[in-house]
Structures are given as C-alpha cells and as structure tokens.
C-alpha cells in the first residue's frame, strides 16, 4: 500500500512546518576561479524567493561563465525555489547535469520543474494610443448596434406575446405580473411618496423665497403645481424605479443566466420572453403610472404643507388657487410619459440581464449599465416630450 520509503526523505527538506526561520539563500563564486564552480546554499523556498531571484538575476546579468553549479549547501527546496535554480542554469547556459550533487529527495522536484516554462512566453505588442482609441470606438459602435438590435427584438417579441395572449389568455402570466407589480409598485410606494413630498416642499420653499421679493408669493402655487405634475413627479419616480427595480431585473435575469437557469427553461420549451420578460415589462407599465400618481399627490401635499408653515397660505386657499393654476392637461402631460419611461426601464434592464456573461464582474457591469442607460434615455425622452407638447400647445 505504501508507495515506498523514499517519500519520508522527501518530507525532510520541508520538515519545517510553520517556521520561516531558515538560512538565507546564497550564491557564491566568481568566474575568475579556474574550476568555474558556483556554490549555492541556504533555503530556496517561496519565503526566501525574492532574495534568491535577485542574486540569480545579478549572476546571470554579470555574464560570468561557470561550468558547474554546486548544490551541496542547498537546505530546503520547493517548486518556486527549484524554478529559480532552473532559471539560473538556463541563464548560464548549463544543463541539469551540470548541477550536483542533487539530493535524492530533490531529484523528482527538479525534474518536474525542469519540464516547465520551456517556451518563452510571447508578449503581445501593446497597440499605440491612436489604434486603441480607434478600436475602442469601433467596439463601442458595435456595442450600441447590438443594444439597438436586442431592444428591437425584445419589443417585437413582447408585442407578439401580447397578440398571442388575445388568442390564448393563458400565455399571459397573470400571477407573475401581479407579483412584479407588488415588488416594483406597491413596495415602492413609501419611498416614492416620501421623496416626492420632500421635493415638492423644497421646490415650494425655493420658489417662495425668490418670489417673495416681488410680492408674488401666491404664484409659487402655480410653480409647484405645474412643475410637480408636468415634470418632477414622474421623472423622479422613474429615476427611483430605475435604480430600485431596473437593477433588480438585471441582477435577477443575469444571475439566472449565469446559473444556466435560462438555458434550462429554453430546453424545457418555455419561452423566455413570455415567462421572464413580458411579465416584468407589463407589470412596470402598469405600476409606474400609478406610482407617478402617488408621487404627484405627495408632491402637491408637500408643497402645500410647506407654504402653510412658511408663507402662511392656508390649505383651503392653496387648494383653491391650485384649481385655477392647473388643469387636467397638466396632469395628463405628466402621466402620459410614465408608460414610456416604464418601457425604457424594463426593456433595458431585461436586455442587459440577458447579456450577462460568465463572471461576477460582468453581472455588476451590466447592472450598472442598465441603470445608467435607462436614466439617460428617460431624460432624453422627457425632453422630446417637452418639445412635442410645446409644439402642439397642450
């Protein structure tokens, strides 16, 4: 059963268990001596490797010639030390047979390490600044093209999925949609309401402070009403949801991809779009306008409360003035943007999730990209809507 007693001797040089107190590695000898022998002594292990490597480097670079390497002083040896000694031999143009005496227990170690690092690793040339800038630009363009492609594909598939669900209502996963509405909608209500309340109050306070100089303080109500309903309520909610639910979508789908769950679904004949993507997109399209409504109300309440305390405008007066200041179209202009924002968030989050590769790093990169891209696109779309509504005078 035992593979021979030789192994016990092999243990001996490594006998020092957790001690690092050994002899320092040493190379002695100079090329002028007639016999040309280099004497090697001390411990050659990873603990002493830095010193050993420096000595080997200086001997190899001094271009002195040696015919023999004397290893009689070698105490402890491990693979790292063996490699440095092999490198010394190669650097001096000597062969393994020129090194002696090799202890029986070191022999197999030297032989094993001798076989390694035979090829010089070819270093890939670093491209110049211009080349790398150009190739990076090219890669980015291809990346954008791929993004557009996958977004178009997802949109098309979701529309198809909705059309199919008219014929076959079972293909619409109601349970899943409700679950995601709960996750992304209901659970986000407290934070969305609190944030809008504060933003409404801040806008009101800033406006009141500036307009007070002109004695036009009541016009703050116009400011708060229009700003919150048309822009801030929806945009801030969408940004919050992008950070909260968009990142979650990417991480969920991405980690499912990493653990081959998506592949498992595919081979079971489940339609990924139908099972994973469409419920998320539909849930968010329903939930975001509702969240926007909550945000609008909270923002108006926040502004009213602040003006009551800060500018002595009573709530009844606030409400009456607000009724004059905003019309139903002010509210609609805001809320009509919400489904588009939801579509942007959900599509980008899901597409990034599907593009997650094998590494943990790629999951992180994709999640970041999902949030950043969706917020950027939302702000752009918001701008387009502003121009559009201004143009049609709504």
């Amino acid at each position: 059963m035992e593979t021979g007693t030789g192994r016990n001797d092999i243990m001996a040089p490594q006998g020092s268990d957790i001690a690092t107190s050994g002899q320092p590695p040493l190379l002695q000898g100079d090329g002028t001596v007639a016999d040309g022998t280099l004497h090697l002594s001390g411990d050659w292990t990873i603990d002493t490797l830095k010193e050993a490597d420096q000595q080997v480097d200086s001997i190899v670079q001094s271009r002195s010639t040696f015919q023999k390497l004397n290893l009689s002083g070698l105490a402890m040896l491990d693979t790292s030390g063996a490699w440095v000694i092999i490198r010394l031999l190669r650097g001096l143009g000597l062969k393994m047979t020129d090194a002696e005496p090799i202890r029986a227990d070191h022999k197999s170690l030297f032989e094993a390490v001798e076989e390694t690092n035979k090829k010089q690793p070819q270093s890939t040339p670093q491209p110049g600044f211009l080349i790398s800038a150009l190739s990076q630009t090219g890669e980015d363009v291809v990346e954008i093209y791929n993004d557009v492609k996958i977004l178009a594909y997802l949109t098309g598939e979701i529309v198809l999925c909705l059309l199919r669900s008219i014929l076959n209502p079972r293909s619409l996963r109601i349970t899943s949609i409700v679950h995601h509405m709960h996750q992304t909608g209901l659970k986000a209500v407290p934070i969305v309401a609190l944030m809008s309340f504060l933003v409404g109050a801040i806008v009101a306070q800033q406006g009141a402070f500036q307009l007070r100089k002109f004695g036009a303080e009541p016009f703050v109500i116009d400011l708060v009403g229009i700003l919150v309903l048309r822009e801030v309520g929806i945009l801030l909610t969408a940004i919050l949801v992008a950070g909260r639910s968009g990142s979650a979508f990417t991480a969920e789908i991405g980690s499912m991809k990493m653990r081959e769950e998506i592949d498992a679904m595919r081979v079971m004949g489940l339609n990924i779009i139908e099972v994973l993507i469409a419920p998320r997109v539909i849930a968010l399209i329903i939930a975001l306008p509702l969240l926007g409504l909550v945000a609008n109300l909270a923002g108006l309440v926040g502004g009213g409360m602040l003006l009551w305390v800060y500018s002595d405008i009573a709530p009844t007066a606030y409400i009456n003035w607000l009724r004059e200041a905003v019309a139903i179209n002010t509210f609609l202009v805001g809320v009509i943007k919400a489904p588009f924002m939801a579509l942007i968030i959900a599509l980008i989050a899901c597409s990034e999730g599907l593009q997650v590769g094998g590494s943990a790093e790629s999951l992180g990169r994709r999640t970041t990209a999902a949030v950043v891209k969706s917020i950027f696109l939302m702000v752009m779309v918001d701008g387009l809507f502003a121009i559009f509504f201004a143009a049609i005078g709504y």
Partner: protein
Amino acid sequence: MTTPLDTRQTPLTSDDTKPPILSIRGLTVGFDERLILDKLDLDVKRGEILGIVGASGTGKSVLLRSVLGLLNRQAGQFILFGHDTENLTRAERLTIERRLGVLFQHGALFSSLSVLQNIQVPMREYYSLPQRLMDELAISKLELVGLSPDAAHKFPSELSGGMIKRAALARALALDPQLLFLDEPTSGLDPISAEEFDDLISTLRDTLGLTVFMVTHDLDSLSQACDRIAVLAERRVLAIGNMTELQKNPHPWIKSYFTGKRAFRQWDKS
C-alpha cells in the same frame, strides 16, 4: 513577542513514528438541534493520501469546512502541524494557513481574473515578488498540473470542467502547501480525465511531498490514489484503513459500498 514556531522535523524512517500532520479530536458540529458530527477523531499522517467517503449527508463537506475554519464547531480540537489551532496568534494562524491548499468542488476560481492572475492571488497577498517572476512561477505551476501555458490568459468561464479543476489545483499549489484538501476532485470529470487527475495527485504527492486530504466518491480514486480511506457514518469515523481492510469490514453500509456492483467492476479490472 512569541517564540518562533520552529518544529523542524528530523527525518525519520516511518510515517507512524512522526506526529500526524493533522489531528482532529472530539469534533462536534451541528446545525440547530441536529448533530452532524459527534466527537469525531481522525489523524492525517504525513505524506499520505487520505480519502474520506460516506453517504450523502453524513458530513464529509462539513468535516472539510470545519477543518478549514469555514464552519463553527461546537466542540473539538484541531492539531495542525503540531499546534493546537485554538492557541495561535493571528500571525501564526496566517503562517499555518499559508501551508494549506484547498481545491473546492467547483474550483472556486475568481471569475473576473484570468487563470494566471488567479494563481498569482496568494503570491501577491503574501509576498512582494516581481511580476516577471510571478508570471514564470504561475506558468510553471500550470504546467505542473498538466495545463498548457496557452490557458494562462483565459478566463474561468472559457475553461472546460477538467481545466477548471486543474487551474484551481494550480492555485491551491501556488504557495507550495504541505497539506492539500481536495473536495470531490474528480466529480464531473470523464473517466479518462479523472484517472489522469488521480495520477496527477499521486505524482504531485511524490514530487512535492504533499499530504492530501481528499473527500471523494470515486471508487477509482479511492483504490488508485488513496493510501488510507476513512469511512464517515453515524456522525463519526466508522472505519479507517486501506481498501482491502475495509472490504472485510462487516458494517452493512461499508460492505455495500466496497463490495457493491460498482466496486466489483473495480476489482474485475485489477
């Protein structure tokens, strides 16, 4: 200032006369009310390859993870390299941990680093070596475990199962450990790769003077590579010995494990 832990061993002629490299005494581990291991004793001798077998759920992985300090134990003592792991300072513990290498079941390579960088992680952490030397050492380790240097710049997601195991083994060997823990090293490998891996472990044990603690289900590994086999059942080490000794053991589980159909196929070959 503590005295340096010098336990330099003088060469002896027999494994048995040396203190074991790892002694586990009275190890008790449990989750909630359920005990997984109860007062388990086990010695790992210097230079041996010890296989741990047991039915699923008997606590093989729990044993491995508690030795590595990844799981808390309720009672018990580990004597590693002659030192009780309880009474170590932080620095001593680090020195000891540097002498351990672990190959996890699924490799546990860092997915955001290339194979070369994976192997260099422990070197970078403990030593300040020039990059050129670390590259050479990492390539050398890769070739020792039978991978070609071309694999060095690949990422773990680009490797096959067998390559992942080998690369993870190279990382485990980065600091020349004396005690190597392997968690199901041949699981998920085809029989040929598994056999090569067994040979590799034996070869490395002989060239590098390793002691190997291997959790495995692979009867081929057990018969080809292991010097001794410990059978884990009923919350303790039920039996320990070489293949022939265990085959004579009357315990029903051990009997069916080592003389079952799969085991017989093993004997037919030899």
